[in-house]
Protein backbone atom coordinates (compact mmCIF):
# COMPACT_ATOMS: atom_id res chain seq x y z
CA UNK A 1 0.00 0.00 0.00
CA UNK A 2 1.37 3.37 -1.04
CA UNK A 3 -0.69 6.17 0.48
CA UNK A 4 -0.15 9.57 2.05
CA UNK A 5 -1.66 8.76 5.41
CA UNK A 6 -0.49 8.75 9.02
CA UNK A 7 -2.29 5.76 10.45
CA UNK A 8 -4.99 3.72 8.71
CA UNK A 9 -7.34 4.06 11.70
CA UNK A 10 -6.89 7.85 11.74
CA UNK A 11 -7.53 8.63 8.07
CA UNK A 12 -11.09 9.92 8.42
CA UNK A 13 -10.32 11.95 11.55
CA UNK A 14 -7.25 13.51 9.93
CA UNK A 15 -9.20 14.32 6.76
CA UNK A 16 -11.97 16.05 8.71
CA UNK A 17 -9.47 18.21 10.57
CA UNK A 18 -7.76 19.08 7.31
CA UNK A 19 -11.06 20.06 5.70
CA UNK A 20 -12.02 22.36 8.56
CA UNK A 21 -8.58 24.01 8.56
CA UNK A 22 -8.85 24.63 4.82
CA UNK A 23 -12.43 25.92 4.78
CA UNK A 24 -13.36 27.40 8.18
CA UNK A 25 -15.58 29.94 6.44
CA UNK A 26 -17.76 27.17 4.96
CA UNK A 27 -17.63 24.11 7.20
CA UNK A 28 -17.47 23.20 10.85
CA UNK A 29 -17.06 19.89 12.62
CA UNK A 30 -19.62 18.99 15.28
CA UNK A 31 -17.35 18.39 18.33
CA UNK A 32 -16.49 14.73 19.06
CA UNK A 33 -18.18 13.47 15.90
CA UNK A 34 -17.31 12.79 12.28
CA UNK A 35 -19.99 15.22 11.15
CA UNK A 36 -19.32 18.27 8.96
CA UNK A 37 -22.00 20.95 8.76
CA UNK A 38 -22.49 24.35 7.16
CA UNK A 39 -20.62 27.03 9.07
CA UNK A 40 -23.94 28.91 9.42
CA UNK A 41 -26.01 25.87 10.49
CA UNK A 42 -28.72 25.61 11.63
CA UNK A 43 -30.12 27.90 8.95
CA UNK A 44 -33.23 29.56 10.33
CA UNK A 45 -36.52 28.86 8.57
CA UNK A 46 -35.03 26.28 6.22
CA UNK A 47 -35.55 22.52 5.92
CA UNK A 48 -32.16 20.88 6.48
CA UNK A 49 -30.61 18.11 4.37
CA UNK A 50 -28.30 15.48 5.79
CA UNK A 51 -26.48 12.86 3.77
CA UNK A 52 -23.39 10.79 4.26
CA UNK A 53 -22.02 7.32 4.09
CA UNK A 54 -18.64 5.73 4.12
CA UNK A 55 -15.64 7.94 3.41
CA UNK A 56 -13.48 7.42 0.34
CA UNK A 57 -15.99 8.96 -2.10
CA UNK A 58 -14.75 12.54 -1.84
CA UNK A 59 -15.95 15.11 -2.66
CA UNK A 60 -19.04 13.14 -1.53
CA UNK A 61 -20.50 13.98 0.82
CA UNK A 62 -18.86 16.78 2.80
CA UNK A 63 -17.96 18.52 -0.47
CA UNK A 64 -21.67 19.08 -1.06
CA UNK A 65 -22.30 20.81 2.24
CA UNK A 66 -23.07 24.47 1.76
CA UNK A 67 -25.63 26.96 0.54
CA UNK A 68 -28.07 25.38 -1.91
CA UNK A 69 -27.15 21.76 -1.17
CA UNK A 70 -26.59 19.82 2.07
CA UNK A 71 -26.58 21.19 5.60
CA UNK A 72 -24.62 18.29 7.03
CA UNK A 73 -22.60 15.27 5.99
CA UNK A 74 -21.76 12.28 8.16
CA UNK A 75 -18.38 10.76 7.36
CA UNK A 76 -18.20 7.05 8.17
CA UNK A 77 -15.04 4.97 8.17
CA UNK A 78 -13.72 4.27 4.66
CA UNK A 79 -16.48 2.50 2.69
CA UNK A 80 -18.41 1.89 5.92
CA UNK A 81 -21.74 3.44 6.80
CA UNK A 82 -21.59 5.86 9.75
CA UNK A 83 -23.23 4.75 12.98
CA UNK A 84 -26.67 5.95 14.21
CA UNK A 85 -25.24 8.18 16.97
CA UNK A 86 -23.19 10.08 14.38
CA UNK A 87 -26.16 10.53 12.06
CA UNK A 88 -28.25 11.67 15.02
CA UNK A 89 -25.59 14.23 15.94
CA UNK A 90 -25.80 15.62 12.39
CA UNK A 91 -29.60 15.80 12.46
CA UNK A 92 -29.57 17.66 15.79
CA UNK A 93 -26.86 20.07 14.68
CA UNK A 94 -28.64 21.21 11.51
CA UNK A 95 -32.33 21.11 12.44
CA UNK A 96 -33.78 24.61 12.63
CA UNK A 97 -37.22 23.35 13.57
CA UNK A 98 -38.39 22.99 9.96
CA UNK A 99 -37.44 19.32 9.75
CA UNK A 100 -34.64 17.28 8.22
CA UNK A 101 -34.47 15.26 5.01
CA UNK A 102 -32.05 12.32 5.04
CA UNK A 103 -30.61 11.42 1.65
CA UNK A 104 -29.48 7.79 1.87
CA UNK A 105 -27.69 5.71 -0.74
CA UNK A 106 -29.26 2.28 -1.01
CA UNK A 107 -26.89 -0.02 0.87
CA UNK A 108 -28.04 -2.33 3.65
CA UNK A 109 -25.78 -0.71 6.25
CA UNK A 110 -26.56 2.89 5.31
CA UNK A 111 -30.29 2.28 5.32
CA UNK A 112 -30.17 0.56 8.74
CA UNK A 113 -27.98 3.15 10.43
CA UNK A 114 -29.85 6.15 9.03
CA UNK A 115 -33.23 4.60 9.87
CA UNK A 116 -32.13 3.96 13.46
CA UNK A 117 -30.95 7.58 13.68
CA UNK A 118 -34.25 8.82 12.24
CA UNK A 119 -36.17 6.92 14.92
CA UNK A 120 -33.97 8.36 17.66
CA UNK A 121 -34.40 11.90 16.28
CA UNK A 122 -38.16 11.52 16.04
CA UNK A 123 -38.20 10.35 19.65
CA UNK A 124 -36.54 13.69 20.47
CA UNK A 125 -39.27 15.57 18.62
CA UNK A 126 -37.43 16.33 15.38
CA UNK A 127 -39.34 15.89 12.15
CA UNK A 128 -37.36 13.56 9.88
CA UNK A 129 -38.07 12.22 6.40
CA UNK A 130 -35.81 9.97 4.39
CA UNK A 131 -35.31 9.21 0.72
CA UNK A 132 -33.26 6.32 -0.63
CA UNK A 133 -31.30 6.76 -3.85
CA UNK A 134 -30.93 3.68 -6.10
CA UNK A 135 -29.65 4.84 -9.47
CA UNK A 136 -27.21 2.04 -10.39
CA UNK A 137 -28.62 0.10 -13.33
CA UNK A 138 -25.84 -2.51 -12.99
CA UNK A 139 -27.94 -4.19 -10.32
CA UNK A 140 -31.15 -5.98 -11.07
CA UNK A 141 -34.05 -4.31 -9.33
CA UNK A 142 -36.22 -6.59 -7.27
CA UNK A 143 -38.38 -6.29 -4.20
CA UNK A 144 -36.96 -9.59 -2.94
CA UNK A 145 -33.39 -8.36 -2.79
CA UNK A 146 -31.49 -5.38 -1.44
CA UNK A 147 -32.04 -3.74 -4.82
CA UNK A 148 -30.07 -1.17 -6.73
CA UNK A 149 -27.17 0.73 -5.24
CA UNK A 150 -26.96 4.48 -4.86
CA UNK A 151 -24.01 5.96 -6.76
CA UNK A 152 -23.15 9.23 -8.53
CA UNK A 153 -26.78 10.12 -9.31
CA UNK A 154 -27.11 10.87 -5.59
CA UNK A 155 -25.31 14.17 -6.17
CA UNK A 156 -28.23 15.35 -8.33
CA UNK A 157 -30.54 14.65 -5.39
CA UNK A 158 -28.33 16.76 -3.13
CA UNK A 159 -28.30 19.59 -5.65
CA UNK A 160 -31.97 19.71 -6.56
CA UNK A 161 -33.53 18.94 -3.17
CA UNK A 162 -31.01 21.35 -1.63
CA UNK A 163 -32.12 24.13 -3.99
CA UNK A 164 -35.75 23.47 -3.16
CA UNK A 165 -34.96 23.70 0.58
CA UNK A 166 -33.06 26.93 -0.02
CA UNK A 167 -36.23 28.29 -1.68
CA UNK A 168 -37.99 27.87 1.64
CA UNK A 169 -40.08 24.85 0.65
CA UNK A 170 -41.66 22.60 3.28
CA UNK A 171 -40.15 19.26 4.27
CA UNK A 172 -42.86 17.47 2.33
CA UNK A 173 -42.15 19.52 -0.77
CA UNK A 174 -38.40 19.01 -0.53
CA UNK A 175 -39.04 15.28 -0.23
CA UNK A 176 -41.33 15.37 -3.28
CA UNK A 177 -38.62 16.95 -5.40
CA UNK A 178 -35.99 14.52 -4.11
CA UNK A 179 -38.22 11.58 -5.05
CA UNK A 180 -38.77 13.07 -8.51
CA UNK A 181 -34.99 13.17 -9.04
CA UNK A 182 -34.60 9.58 -7.80
CA UNK A 183 -37.30 8.41 -10.20
CA UNK A 184 -35.61 10.12 -13.14
CA UNK A 185 -31.91 9.47 -12.61
CA UNK A 186 -29.92 6.40 -13.69
CA UNK A 187 -26.20 5.64 -13.64
CA UNK A 188 -23.82 2.96 -14.81
CA UNK A 189 -20.14 2.60 -13.99
CA UNK A 190 -17.06 0.63 -14.97
CA UNK A 191 -13.57 0.15 -13.52
CA UNK A 192 -10.10 -0.29 -14.95
CA UNK A 193 -8.25 -0.83 -11.67
CA UNK A 194 -8.92 -1.69 -8.05
CA UNK A 195 -8.53 0.43 -4.93
CA UNK A 196 -7.10 -0.12 -1.45
CA UNK A 197 -9.04 0.56 1.74
CA UNK A 198 -6.35 1.95 4.11
CA UNK A 199 -7.25 -0.37 6.99
CA UNK A 200 -7.21 -3.41 4.69
CA UNK A 201 -3.75 -2.53 3.37
CA UNK A 202 -4.16 -4.32 0.05
CA UNK A 203 -6.42 -3.98 -2.98
CA UNK A 204 -9.94 -5.38 -2.63
CA UNK A 205 -9.66 -7.26 -5.92
CA UNK A 206 -7.57 -7.15 -9.06
CA UNK A 207 -8.36 -6.55 -12.70
CA UNK A 208 -5.85 -7.91 -15.24
CA UNK A 209 -3.96 -5.33 -17.30
CA UNK A 210 -6.02 -6.04 -20.45
CA UNK A 211 -9.46 -6.23 -18.82
CA UNK A 212 -12.13 -3.97 -17.36
CA UNK A 213 -15.12 -4.58 -15.13
CA UNK A 214 -18.48 -3.30 -16.28
CA UNK A 215 -20.99 -2.32 -13.59
CA UNK A 216 -18.43 -2.00 -10.78
CA UNK A 217 -19.85 -0.48 -7.59
CA UNK A 218 -18.25 2.48 -5.82
CA UNK A 219 -16.93 0.24 -3.02
CA UNK A 220 -15.37 -2.22 -5.42
CA UNK A 221 -18.43 -4.46 -5.34
CA UNK A 222 -18.22 -6.79 -8.30
CA UNK A 223 -19.95 -5.57 -11.44
CA UNK A 224 -22.02 -7.35 -14.04
CA UNK A 225 -19.10 -8.80 -15.98
CA UNK A 226 -15.43 -8.65 -16.93
CA UNK A 227 -14.47 -7.91 -20.50
CA UNK A 228 -11.40 -7.25 -22.60
CA UNK A 229 -10.57 -3.57 -22.42
CA UNK A 230 -12.13 -1.59 -25.24
CA UNK A 231 -11.83 1.89 -26.73
CA UNK A 232 -13.51 4.80 -24.96
CA UNK A 233 -16.16 5.08 -27.71
CA UNK A 234 -17.26 1.52 -27.15
CA UNK A 235 -17.23 1.82 -23.34
CA UNK A 236 -19.20 5.07 -23.38
CA UNK A 237 -21.78 3.62 -25.81
CA UNK A 238 -22.21 0.50 -23.71
CA UNK A 239 -22.74 2.35 -20.45
CA UNK A 240 -24.94 5.00 -22.00
CA UNK A 241 -27.22 2.59 -23.83
CA UNK A 242 -27.82 0.60 -20.63
CA UNK A 243 -28.80 3.84 -18.88
CA UNK A 244 -30.96 5.14 -21.72
CA UNK A 245 -32.81 1.86 -22.17
CA UNK A 246 -33.42 1.43 -18.47
CA UNK A 247 -34.96 4.88 -18.12
CA UNK A 248 -36.81 4.68 -21.41
CA UNK A 249 -35.35 7.94 -22.67
CA UNK A 250 -37.10 9.24 -25.78
CA UNK A 251 -36.53 11.72 -28.54
CA UNK A 252 -37.32 15.22 -27.30
CA UNK A 253 -36.44 14.49 -23.67
CA UNK A 254 -34.27 16.99 -21.87
CA UNK A 255 -31.47 15.68 -19.65
CA UNK A 256 -28.50 16.55 -17.48
CA UNK A 257 -25.45 14.34 -17.85
CA UNK A 258 -22.69 13.53 -15.37
CA UNK A 259 -19.41 11.94 -16.46
CA UNK A 260 -17.84 11.01 -13.14
CA UNK A 261 -14.29 9.87 -12.38
CA UNK A 262 -13.91 7.08 -9.82
CA UNK A 263 -10.74 8.76 -8.58
CA UNK A 264 -7.80 8.03 -10.85
CA UNK A 265 -9.27 8.65 -14.28
CA UNK A 266 -8.11 12.06 -15.50
CA UNK A 267 -10.33 14.76 -16.98
CA UNK A 268 -8.83 14.17 -20.40
CA UNK A 269 -10.33 10.68 -20.51
CA UNK A 270 -13.63 11.88 -19.08
CA UNK A 271 -13.95 14.38 -21.91
CA UNK A 272 -13.02 11.68 -24.42
CA UNK A 273 -15.93 9.64 -23.03
CA UNK A 274 -18.22 12.65 -23.15
CA UNK A 275 -17.55 13.15 -26.83
CA UNK A 276 -19.35 9.87 -27.51
CA UNK A 277 -22.02 10.48 -24.89
CA UNK A 278 -22.80 13.99 -26.19
CA UNK A 279 -22.85 12.91 -29.83
CA UNK A 280 -25.00 9.87 -29.16
CA UNK A 281 -27.59 11.86 -27.24
CA UNK A 282 -27.66 14.52 -29.93
CA UNK A 283 -28.13 11.96 -32.69
CA UNK A 284 -31.05 10.47 -30.77
CA UNK A 285 -32.73 13.87 -30.51
CA UNK A 286 -32.21 14.15 -26.78
CA UNK A 287 -31.52 17.66 -25.55
CA UNK A 288 -28.59 18.00 -23.15
CA UNK A 289 -29.40 20.83 -20.78
CA UNK A 290 -26.10 20.61 -18.92
CA UNK A 291 -23.09 18.29 -18.67
CA UNK A 292 -21.01 17.84 -15.55
CA UNK A 293 -17.54 16.34 -16.00
CA UNK A 294 -15.20 15.60 -13.10
CA UNK A 295 -14.88 13.93 -9.73
CA UNK A 296 -18.27 13.80 -8.03
CA UNK A 297 -18.53 10.36 -6.40
CA UNK A 298 -15.18 8.62 -6.29
CA UNK A 299 -13.95 5.28 -5.05
CA UNK A 300 -10.55 6.14 -3.53
CA UNK A 301 -7.89 5.79 -6.24
CA UNK A 302 -9.88 3.53 -8.56
CA UNK A 303 -9.52 4.18 -12.28
CA UNK A 304 -12.84 4.12 -14.05
CA UNK A 305 -15.95 6.17 -14.55
CA UNK A 306 -19.67 6.33 -14.22
CA UNK A 307 -22.19 7.94 -16.51
CA UNK A 308 -25.38 9.37 -15.02
CA UNK A 309 -28.36 10.76 -16.87
CA UNK A 310 -31.14 12.76 -15.22
CA UNK A 311 -34.38 13.42 -17.09
CA UNK A 312 -35.44 17.01 -16.48
CA UNK A 313 -38.72 18.85 -16.49
CA UNK A 314 -39.04 22.61 -16.05
CA UNK A 315 -38.99 22.39 -12.26
CA UNK A 316 -35.93 20.14 -12.03
CA UNK A 317 -34.02 22.18 -14.63
CA UNK A 318 -34.63 25.38 -12.71
CA UNK A 319 -33.53 23.85 -9.41
CA UNK A 320 -30.46 22.31 -11.05
CA UNK A 321 -29.46 25.74 -12.37
CA UNK A 322 -29.99 27.51 -9.05
CA UNK A 323 -26.92 28.85 -7.25
CA UNK A 324 -25.00 26.54 -4.96
CA UNK A 325 -21.88 27.30 -3.02
CA UNK A 326 -20.06 24.12 -2.05
CA UNK A 327 -16.57 22.71 -2.54
CA UNK A 328 -17.54 19.85 -4.82
CA UNK A 329 -20.32 21.10 -7.06
CA UNK A 330 -19.05 22.78 -10.19
Amino acid sequence: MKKLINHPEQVVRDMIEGVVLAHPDRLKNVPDTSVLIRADAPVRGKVALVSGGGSGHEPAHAGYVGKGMLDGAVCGEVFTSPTPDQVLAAIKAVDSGEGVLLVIKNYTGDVMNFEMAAELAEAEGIQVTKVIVNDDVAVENSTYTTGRRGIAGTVFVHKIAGAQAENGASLQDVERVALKVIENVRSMGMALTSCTVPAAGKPGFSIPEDEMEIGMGIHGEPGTHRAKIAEADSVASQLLSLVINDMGLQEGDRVAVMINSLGATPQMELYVLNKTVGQTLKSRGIQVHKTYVGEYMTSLEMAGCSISVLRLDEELAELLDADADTLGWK
Partner: protein
Amino acid sequence: MAITIKQLVLWLETASQRILQQKSYLTELDQAIGDGDHGINLSRGFQEVTSRIQSTEYDDVGQLFNAVGSTLIQKVGGASGPIYGIAFVKGGAALKGRQEITIAEFSQFLHQGIAAIKSLGKSEEGNKTVLDVWAPVASYLTENGENTDWAKAIDHCWEHAEKTKDLKATKGRASYLGERSIGHLDPGAVSSAYLFEALFQTLADGNRAV
Protein backbone atom coordinates in the same frame (compact mmCIF):
# COMPACT_ATOMS: atom_id res chain seq x y z
CA MET B 1 -26.77 -25.62 34.60
CA ALA B 2 -26.69 -21.86 35.02
CA ILE B 3 -24.61 -19.50 32.92
CA THR B 4 -23.09 -16.82 35.15
CA ILE B 5 -22.32 -13.21 34.28
CA LYS B 6 -18.65 -14.04 34.73
CA GLN B 7 -18.93 -16.72 32.05
CA LEU B 8 -20.77 -14.36 29.72
CA VAL B 9 -18.08 -11.70 30.14
CA LEU B 10 -15.41 -14.31 29.50
CA TRP B 11 -17.34 -15.44 26.40
CA LEU B 12 -17.39 -11.93 24.97
CA GLU B 13 -13.70 -11.41 25.70
CA THR B 14 -12.84 -14.71 24.03
CA ALA B 15 -15.03 -13.86 21.04
CA SER B 16 -13.35 -10.44 20.68
CA GLN B 17 -9.95 -12.08 20.70
CA ARG B 18 -10.99 -14.65 18.15
CA ILE B 19 -12.47 -12.02 15.82
CA LEU B 20 -9.32 -9.92 16.14
CA GLN B 21 -7.20 -12.95 15.25
CA GLN B 22 -9.41 -13.65 12.24
CA LYS B 23 -9.69 -10.01 11.15
CA SER B 24 -7.81 -10.49 7.88
CA TYR B 25 -9.59 -13.74 7.04
CA LEU B 26 -13.03 -12.17 7.59
CA THR B 27 -12.00 -9.19 5.50
CA GLU B 28 -10.80 -11.48 2.71
CA LEU B 29 -14.13 -13.32 2.72
CA ASP B 30 -15.88 -9.96 2.43
CA GLN B 31 -13.57 -8.81 -0.37
CA ALA B 32 -14.73 -11.78 -2.41
CA ILE B 33 -18.45 -11.01 -2.29
CA GLY B 34 -18.93 -7.74 -0.41
CA ASP B 35 -16.99 -4.56 0.17
CA GLY B 36 -14.08 -5.95 2.17
CA ASP B 37 -14.50 -4.36 5.57
CA HIS B 38 -16.20 -6.99 7.73
CA GLY B 39 -13.13 -8.07 9.73
CA ILE B 40 -11.90 -4.51 10.18
CA ASN B 41 -15.21 -3.16 11.43
CA LEU B 42 -16.23 -6.08 13.60
CA SER B 43 -12.88 -6.37 15.34
CA ARG B 44 -12.88 -2.61 16.02
CA GLY B 45 -16.36 -2.95 17.57
CA PHE B 46 -15.53 -5.99 19.67
CA GLN B 47 -12.33 -4.38 20.97
CA GLU B 48 -14.52 -1.53 22.20
CA VAL B 49 -16.89 -4.07 23.76
CA THR B 50 -13.99 -5.67 25.62
CA SER B 51 -12.67 -2.40 26.98
CA ARG B 52 -16.17 -1.35 28.04
CA ILE B 53 -17.06 -4.57 29.84
CA GLN B 54 -13.66 -4.80 31.49
CA SER B 55 -13.99 -1.33 32.96
CA THR B 56 -17.43 -2.00 34.48
CA GLU B 57 -18.72 -4.50 37.05
CA TYR B 58 -21.96 -6.06 35.87
CA ASP B 59 -24.45 -7.83 38.12
CA ASP B 60 -27.27 -7.81 35.58
CA VAL B 61 -27.22 -9.85 32.35
CA GLY B 62 -29.72 -7.49 30.72
CA GLN B 63 -27.45 -4.54 31.42
CA LEU B 64 -24.40 -6.40 30.16
CA PHE B 65 -26.08 -7.33 26.87
CA ASN B 66 -27.41 -3.81 26.47
CA ALA B 67 -23.91 -2.39 26.89
CA VAL B 68 -22.55 -4.89 24.36
CA GLY B 69 -25.29 -4.13 21.83
CA SER B 70 -25.13 -0.36 22.07
CA THR B 71 -21.34 -0.41 21.84
CA LEU B 72 -21.56 -2.50 18.67
CA ILE B 73 -24.21 -0.18 17.19
CA GLN B 74 -22.03 2.86 17.92
CA LYS B 75 -18.63 1.51 16.97
CA VAL B 76 -18.94 -0.95 14.10
CA GLY B 77 -20.83 0.88 11.37
CA GLY B 78 -21.84 -0.77 8.11
CA ALA B 79 -24.62 -3.34 8.31
CA SER B 80 -22.95 -5.62 10.82
CA GLY B 81 -23.00 -2.98 13.60
CA PRO B 82 -26.77 -2.57 13.68
CA ILE B 83 -27.36 -6.29 13.06
CA TYR B 84 -25.14 -7.64 15.85
CA GLY B 85 -26.01 -4.70 18.07
CA ILE B 86 -29.79 -4.91 17.81
CA ALA B 87 -29.67 -8.65 18.57
CA PHE B 88 -27.92 -7.99 21.89
CA VAL B 89 -30.04 -4.95 22.78
CA LYS B 90 -33.46 -6.47 21.98
CA GLY B 91 -32.52 -10.03 22.85
CA GLY B 92 -31.12 -8.93 26.19
CA ALA B 93 -34.13 -6.85 27.21
CA ALA B 94 -35.90 -9.83 28.81
CA LEU B 95 -32.86 -10.62 30.97
CA LYS B 96 -32.94 -7.42 33.01
CA GLY B 97 -32.12 -7.96 36.66
CA ARG B 98 -30.83 -11.51 36.15
CA GLN B 99 -27.50 -12.47 37.65
CA GLU B 100 -27.36 -15.80 35.92
CA ILE B 101 -29.42 -17.48 33.22
CA THR B 102 -30.33 -20.99 32.16
CA ILE B 103 -29.52 -22.47 28.78
CA ALA B 104 -33.22 -22.26 27.94
CA GLU B 105 -33.13 -18.54 28.70
CA PHE B 106 -30.01 -18.12 26.62
CA SER B 107 -31.69 -19.76 23.64
CA GLN B 108 -34.70 -17.52 24.25
CA PHE B 109 -32.28 -14.56 24.07
CA LEU B 110 -31.07 -15.86 20.71
CA HIS B 111 -34.61 -16.27 19.37
CA GLN B 112 -35.48 -12.69 20.37
CA GLY B 113 -32.24 -11.46 18.81
CA ILE B 114 -33.05 -13.32 15.60
CA ALA B 115 -36.50 -11.71 15.45
CA ALA B 116 -34.86 -8.27 15.82
CA ILE B 117 -32.33 -9.02 13.06
CA LYS B 118 -35.09 -10.21 10.73
CA SER B 119 -37.15 -7.12 11.28
CA LEU B 120 -34.23 -4.71 10.87
CA GLY B 121 -32.69 -6.45 7.88
CA LYS B 122 -35.98 -7.47 6.27
CA SER B 123 -34.29 -10.83 5.90
CA GLU B 124 -34.99 -14.50 6.43
CA GLU B 125 -32.97 -17.64 6.88
CA GLY B 126 -31.53 -18.81 3.58
CA ASN B 127 -30.65 -15.29 2.36
CA LYS B 128 -26.96 -16.01 3.05
CA THR B 129 -26.61 -13.83 6.14
CA VAL B 130 -25.77 -14.13 9.87
CA LEU B 131 -29.22 -15.67 10.33
CA ASP B 132 -28.02 -18.86 8.67
CA VAL B 133 -25.86 -19.48 11.74
CA TRP B 134 -27.90 -17.75 14.47
CA ALA B 135 -31.11 -19.65 13.68
CA PRO B 136 -29.67 -23.20 13.65
CA VAL B 137 -27.65 -22.45 16.81
CA ALA B 138 -30.77 -21.21 18.59
CA SER B 139 -32.79 -24.27 17.52
CA TYR B 140 -29.97 -26.57 18.56
CA LEU B 141 -29.83 -25.09 22.05
CA THR B 142 -33.62 -25.12 22.40
CA GLU B 143 -33.70 -28.77 21.39
CA ASN B 144 -30.83 -30.02 23.52
CA GLY B 145 -31.13 -27.67 26.50
CA GLU B 146 -29.24 -28.90 29.54
CA ASN B 147 -28.01 -31.94 27.59
CA THR B 148 -26.12 -29.89 25.03
CA ASP B 149 -22.76 -31.39 24.13
CA TRP B 150 -20.56 -28.33 23.61
CA ALA B 151 -18.15 -29.99 21.17
CA LYS B 152 -21.08 -31.08 19.02
CA ALA B 153 -22.60 -27.61 19.26
CA ILE B 154 -19.37 -26.16 17.86
CA ASP B 155 -19.45 -28.64 14.96
CA HIS B 156 -23.10 -27.79 14.37
CA CYS B 157 -22.45 -24.07 14.08
CA TRP B 158 -19.50 -24.51 11.68
CA GLU B 159 -21.50 -26.96 9.60
CA HIS B 160 -24.13 -24.28 9.08
CA ALA B 161 -21.56 -21.56 8.41
CA GLU B 162 -20.07 -23.84 5.71
CA LYS B 163 -23.52 -24.33 4.19
CA THR B 164 -23.74 -20.64 3.31
CA LYS B 165 -21.27 -21.46 0.53
CA ASP B 166 -24.10 -23.09 -1.44
CA LEU B 167 -26.57 -20.27 -0.89
CA LYS B 168 -27.32 -17.42 -3.25
CA ALA B 169 -27.26 -14.04 -1.50
CA THR B 170 -30.45 -12.00 -1.78
CA LYS B 171 -29.79 -9.52 1.05
CA GLY B 172 -26.82 -7.38 1.92
CA ARG B 173 -23.97 -6.35 -0.30
CA ALA B 174 -23.33 -9.86 -1.63
CA SER B 175 -26.78 -9.75 -3.23
CA TYR B 176 -25.34 -7.62 -6.07
CA LEU B 177 -23.56 -10.76 -7.23
CA GLY B 178 -26.69 -12.89 -7.44
CA GLU B 179 -25.72 -16.34 -8.74
CA ARG B 180 -22.04 -15.45 -8.51
CA SER B 181 -22.27 -15.31 -4.71
CA ILE B 182 -22.67 -19.10 -4.74
CA GLY B 183 -19.42 -20.84 -3.83
CA HIS B 184 -18.35 -18.23 -1.28
CA LEU B 185 -18.82 -18.33 2.49
CA ASP B 186 -20.90 -15.53 3.97
CA PRO B 187 -18.55 -13.37 6.09
CA GLY B 188 -21.31 -12.62 8.64
CA ALA B 189 -22.11 -16.31 9.03
CA VAL B 190 -18.43 -17.03 9.65
CA SER B 191 -18.04 -14.25 12.22
CA SER B 192 -21.20 -15.54 13.92
CA ALA B 193 -19.65 -19.00 14.04
CA TYR B 194 -16.60 -17.53 15.81
CA LEU B 195 -18.93 -15.81 18.27
CA PHE B 196 -20.81 -18.98 19.16
CA GLU B 197 -17.72 -21.18 19.09
CA ALA B 198 -16.26 -18.87 21.75
CA LEU B 199 -19.43 -19.28 23.81
CA PHE B 200 -19.45 -23.06 23.62
CA GLN B 201 -15.76 -23.23 24.46
CA THR B 202 -16.26 -20.98 27.46
CA LEU B 203 -19.15 -23.09 28.70
CA ALA B 204 -17.27 -26.34 28.11
CA ASP B 205 -14.25 -25.03 30.04
CA GLY B 206 -16.53 -23.76 32.81
CA ASN B 207 -18.13 -27.19 33.19
CA ARG B 208 -14.78 -28.90 33.38
CA ALA B 209 -13.65 -26.47 36.05
CA VAL B 210 -16.72 -27.38 38.13
